């Protein structure tokens, strides 16, 4: 009986270590939530052994110590800057989003959207090795599959226009979100021009 329990324990310990070979001592680990540029604070869940910590306050942290135990901690903004400043600085620029509209029933952009397209090109110049995703959106007229196809077709049309304007084809992708991400919330089967848009994400 005791033997069986011991065997299970050994197996469980062996199962914990992913890598084969001798057990390597654990290095200390640190996890922390930091506020975004707009002050938004999200949350992360850290699971270590049988322990689970939810971190959902700005600068709340969890440390895993060399003996494998965990402790809750709170970092100061200074500590984060000192330890992670260079790493955070290496984060790529946040993607920028632009909304474009086609003229009703026409294959050309509205005058306002043509101005917006110039902003897209200005944004491209500000970024190292930029790439683009053109994302089509529809209103709620028609079923899901139809709108997925339609939104992709609209995105692909704008992608072609941008390739003609000189964007290398390998740096621009098209995606269709159909009616899954409405700009203006409506019931199903509602014609809403503001929802029939194409989003250009520059990153």
């Amino acid at each position, binding site marked *: 009986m005791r033997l069986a329990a011991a065997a299970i324990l050994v197996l469980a310990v062996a199962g914990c270590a992913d890598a084969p070979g001798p057990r390597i001592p654990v290095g200390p*680990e640190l996890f922390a939530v930091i506020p975004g540029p707009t002050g938004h604070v999200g949350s992360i869940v850290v699971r270590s052994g049988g322990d689970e910590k939810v971190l959902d306050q700005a600068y709340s942290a969890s440390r895993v110590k060399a003996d494998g135990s965990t402790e809750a901690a709170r970092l100061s903004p200074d500590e984060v800057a000192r330890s992670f400043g260079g790493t955070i600085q290496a984060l790529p620029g946040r993607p920028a989003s632009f909304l474009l509209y086609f003229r009703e029933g026409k294959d050309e952009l509205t005058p306002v959207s043509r101005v917006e397209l110039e902003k897209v090109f200005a944004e491209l110049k500000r970024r190292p090795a930029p790439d683009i995703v053109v994302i089509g959106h529809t209103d709620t007229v028609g079923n899901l599959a139809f709108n997925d196809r339609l939104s992709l077709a609209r995105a692909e049309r704008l992608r072609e226009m941008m390739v003609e304007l000189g964007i290398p084809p390998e740096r621009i992708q098209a995606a269709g979100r159909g009616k899954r991400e409405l700009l203006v919330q409506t019931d199903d089967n509602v014609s809403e021009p503001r929802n029939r848009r194409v989003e250009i994400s520059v990153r």
Partner: protein
Amino acid sequence: MRNTWIVAIALSFAAPALANDIGQVKVAKGAVQVERAGKRVAATVGMPVRTSDVLVTGADGSAGVTFSDNSLVSVGPNSVFAIDKYRFDSTTHVGEFEGSLRKGKLAAVSGKMVKQTPESMKIRTPSSVMAVRGTEFVVEVKEPAAAPAAR
């Protein structure tokens, strides 16, 4: 008429050139290498990233990657970060992102898949698994005292 147009477009889109690319290196400072299929090459800005790639930085290195769902991940000096799993559906935003920080420092901003499905992005360390509900976080894995050289 409209349907014909859609079919024609769908056909022209049938062979995307970037099928295996899941992101791009946007920042590379100092010594940064990408290990792919057992070979290490210097990372350059604009270089595509694929599943199973491992980012390795030297003492003066740091690197930043933008993934296709807009997740942003950067690593600091003396770091090893492996992209174990990545998939993302640009229509539904359903996806899965699993990476391992074997050592060093990481900062990240979660993207569209976590917004769609909280905890669909996970970062593993030698002793923990971190699931991301959003949005920005940092992780550090120090080398164990008197440990054999980490890979």
